[in-house]
């Protein structure tokens, strides 16, 4: 559990400035460790570094104006902020620049103070330091648990989006506070994203996912709207419960605050363009790479800036996943066409999650070669139908099979026909296009024995109980088709004896293997 607070404060109390350049200063801090009794976070410092990198790249922050702190104490944080404020004052004294101050903290906190390791920074003091800055825009962003307490006290409330009528001409004043969670909620980290939920979506938004207006600029309102929507959606599926970002602001003026300019990329103009609406997860290099951004868009041609390189893109659809790799060259925009991607089979999709699909099922035809059940009766060739039902954690596969075998001794020939009905419960593990599964199965069987003899051998009808282990290996084919090989070990409990009605129940161990093919729907 991550206890993070996101507080974005924009204080626009400075008097209107001349329309010179806008200089952006940032203090970015991340602390994985809080108070001794608090669980160490995994991604707070990574989040801070990611925020800094994105702000530098598309936010218009010069590297020399960004101060990044990791595992800092409250004194370190306080000193860094005061130093930034001094620089801002000097800048304003020496130029007609307008200044934006962006303060970000990711780490532990409670309703009263930030927990910077074993030290604490009272939030009221932090607010005063930010408000006291001479910067025209003052943005404070905190990421920790129960941060909504701040906005609640100050009149903040959870909202899906807001419209800050402030433009980048800075002719306005006011204050905004945004938190990643409500006052009584925990903020959560995601191992899948390698980040906190809110920061993951906030940074994705800054990279272009939140460019609702499609003007190649992401405003504060757009970034918050995107982060809010996606955080609520994503955390609604977690056991910790839904996380509701909140905000509170006090500003005057009109326009909007542009947090990132996608055309401003300081180093490169590389980007991915998603031609179709959808939900896309972008990872660096391959499927196990770090998550770069997540794009959820109802519109076509959503553009996300990325660094040149190779990216693994996963599109989540209601009924399938599409995965593929795209290469992004320097200063080029690469179109992502998921029609050309590998489509993940339905069964894998259920196990993988993330699409809302909770079940996959479909018929299979199978052939099985099974060793003899009783001494000398010979192996059996079974044909039949199965119907696997794939659930997120296991697969249930009922099957019915029919087979027959012939054997003979010096007196008679016996034909044994078998109908068996089993249910297997297996746990599957996916690797690329392959799935292996292992589990248990249980069922019953009917045997009919017919004898050819010059003597006397009445027909027999026997019933038995069987159970055992089963293992499968599956290769997934297009359109939900799949082929599978199976191995199994079975124990039969059945009446055995030369006396048709007087045999005792005995056990028979045997094995089997087979092939099957089918399709999931």
């Amino acid at each position, binding site marked *: 559990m991550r206890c993070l607070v996101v507080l974005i404060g924009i204080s626009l109390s400075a008097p209107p400035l001349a329309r010179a350049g806008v200089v952006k200063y940032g203090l970015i801090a991340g602390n994985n460790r809080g108070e001794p009794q608090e669980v160490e976070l995994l991604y707070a410092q990574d989040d801070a570094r990611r925020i800094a990198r994105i702000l530098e790249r598309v936010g218009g922050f010069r590297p020399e104006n960004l101060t990044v702190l990791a595992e800092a104490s409250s004194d370190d944080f306080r000193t860094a902020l005061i130093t930034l404020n001094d620089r801002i004052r000097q800048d304003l004294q020496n130029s007609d620049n307008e200044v934006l101050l962006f303060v970000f903290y990711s780490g532990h906190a409670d309703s009263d103070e930030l927990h910077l390791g074993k030290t604490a920074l009272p939030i009221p003091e932090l607010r005063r330091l930010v408000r006291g800055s001479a910067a025209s825009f003052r943005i404070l962003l905190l990421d920790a648990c129960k941060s909504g307490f701040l906005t609640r006290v100050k009149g903040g409330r959870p909202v899906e989006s807001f419209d800050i009528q402030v433009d980048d001409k800075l002719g306005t004043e006011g204050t905004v506070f945004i938190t990643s969670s409500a006052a009584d909620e925990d903020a959560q980290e995601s191992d899948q994203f390698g980040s906190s939920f809110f920061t993951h979506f906030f940074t994705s938004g800054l990279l272009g996912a939140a460019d609702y207006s499609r003007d190649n600029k992401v405003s504060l309102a757009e970034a918050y709207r995107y982060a809010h929507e996606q955080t609520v959606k994503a955390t609604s599926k977690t056991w910790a419960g839904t996380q509701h970002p909140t905000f509170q602001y006090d500003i005057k003026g009109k326009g909007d605050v542009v947090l990132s300019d996608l055309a401003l990329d300081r180093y490169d103009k590389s980007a991915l363009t998603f031609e179709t609406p959808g939900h896309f997860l972008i990872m660096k290099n391959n499927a196990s790479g770090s998550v770069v951004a997540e794009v959820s868009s109802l519109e076509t041609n959503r553009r996300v800036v990325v660094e040149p390189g190779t990216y693994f893109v996963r599109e989540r659809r209601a009924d399938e996943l599409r995965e593929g790799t795209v290469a992004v060259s320097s200063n080029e925009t690469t179109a992502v066409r998921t029609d050309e991607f590998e489509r993940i089979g339905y069964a894998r999709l259920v196990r993988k999650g993330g699409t809302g699909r909770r079940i996959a099922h479909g018929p299979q035809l199978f052939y099985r070669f099974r060793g003899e*059940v*009783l*001494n*000398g*009766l010979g192996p059996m060739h079974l044909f039949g139908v199965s119907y696997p039902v794939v659930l997120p954690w296991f697969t249930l596969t009922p099957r019915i099979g029919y087979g027959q075998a012939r*054997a003979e*001794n*010096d*007196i*008679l020939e*016996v034909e*044994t026909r078998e109908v068996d009905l089993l249910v297997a419960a297996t746990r599957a593990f996916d690797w690329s296009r392959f799935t292996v599964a292992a589990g248990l199965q*249980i*069922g*019953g069987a*009917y*045997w009919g*024995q017919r*004898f050819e*003899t*010059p*003597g*006397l*051998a*009445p027909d*027999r*009808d*026997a*019933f*038995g*109980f069987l159970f055992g282990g089963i293992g499968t290996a599956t290769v997934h084919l297009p359109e939900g088709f799949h082929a599978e090989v199976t191995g199994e070990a079975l124990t039969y*409990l*059945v*009446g*055995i*004896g*030369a*006396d*048709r*009605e*007087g*045999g*005792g*129940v005995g056990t028979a161990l045997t094995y089997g293997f087979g092939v099957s093919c089918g399709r999931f729907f």
Partner: protein
Amino acid sequence: MRFYSAALIPLFAFSLLSACGDSLADIHYKGDALATIRGELHIEATNRPNDTLQVTLVWAVEDLIDFRVNEDIALEGDSFGRYEIEMLVPPPDAALNVDPETGGRIGFANIFAYDDPNGDGPINLGNIEAENYATLLFRMRGGSPNIMLGYAKDSFDVGTNIANELGTALSPGYFLVRFDGDCYCPFSSDPCQDSNGQTCDVRLDMTVLPLDTDVDLSLVNDISDFEAVPTPDWLFF
């Protein structure tokens, strides 16, 4: 609990079915016995028989050397007190004779005890053909003096010669028949003769016995000492 209860239902169902169904026969099952011949061994010989003593059926056909052996059964136990032969199949057609009157097929077999000292397994037709009759006789240690096993492949109704001789109609299947007396009268006009070739006038009496009748076997030192009832040659047609 509801889930576990539901899961147990098929378990109980299959268990019940296992109890209700027939047993499954394995490859050793050779069928149910059409007839079971059992009885006691009377050890009259001074030489105790070897442990390799076996009981066999020798089907009587016209050429006596052409033995038709149905099955050899090893005797179990030390006492040789009792034996049992399960007849799982009918005799081969070659062991049967065709009744010229009805065209029905019927056969009779002597029940012999024989020794298998070299342990070369049961006697079968191939083995016997490879041996001479004397060797086979040398192996004989005794048999039933007056009871033969019969097999009717077809029915013999009342009024037929076979039914008249046996004193009863025959349905298809195995039967036991006891021969009493020492005077045989052939169907031909030839006179009746006893075992010494002397003319006699008392017919050999044949009685069909229930299949569960004990057929006792007498063991002798020398097979020539074994006195069996004369086999009527009409059996060979």
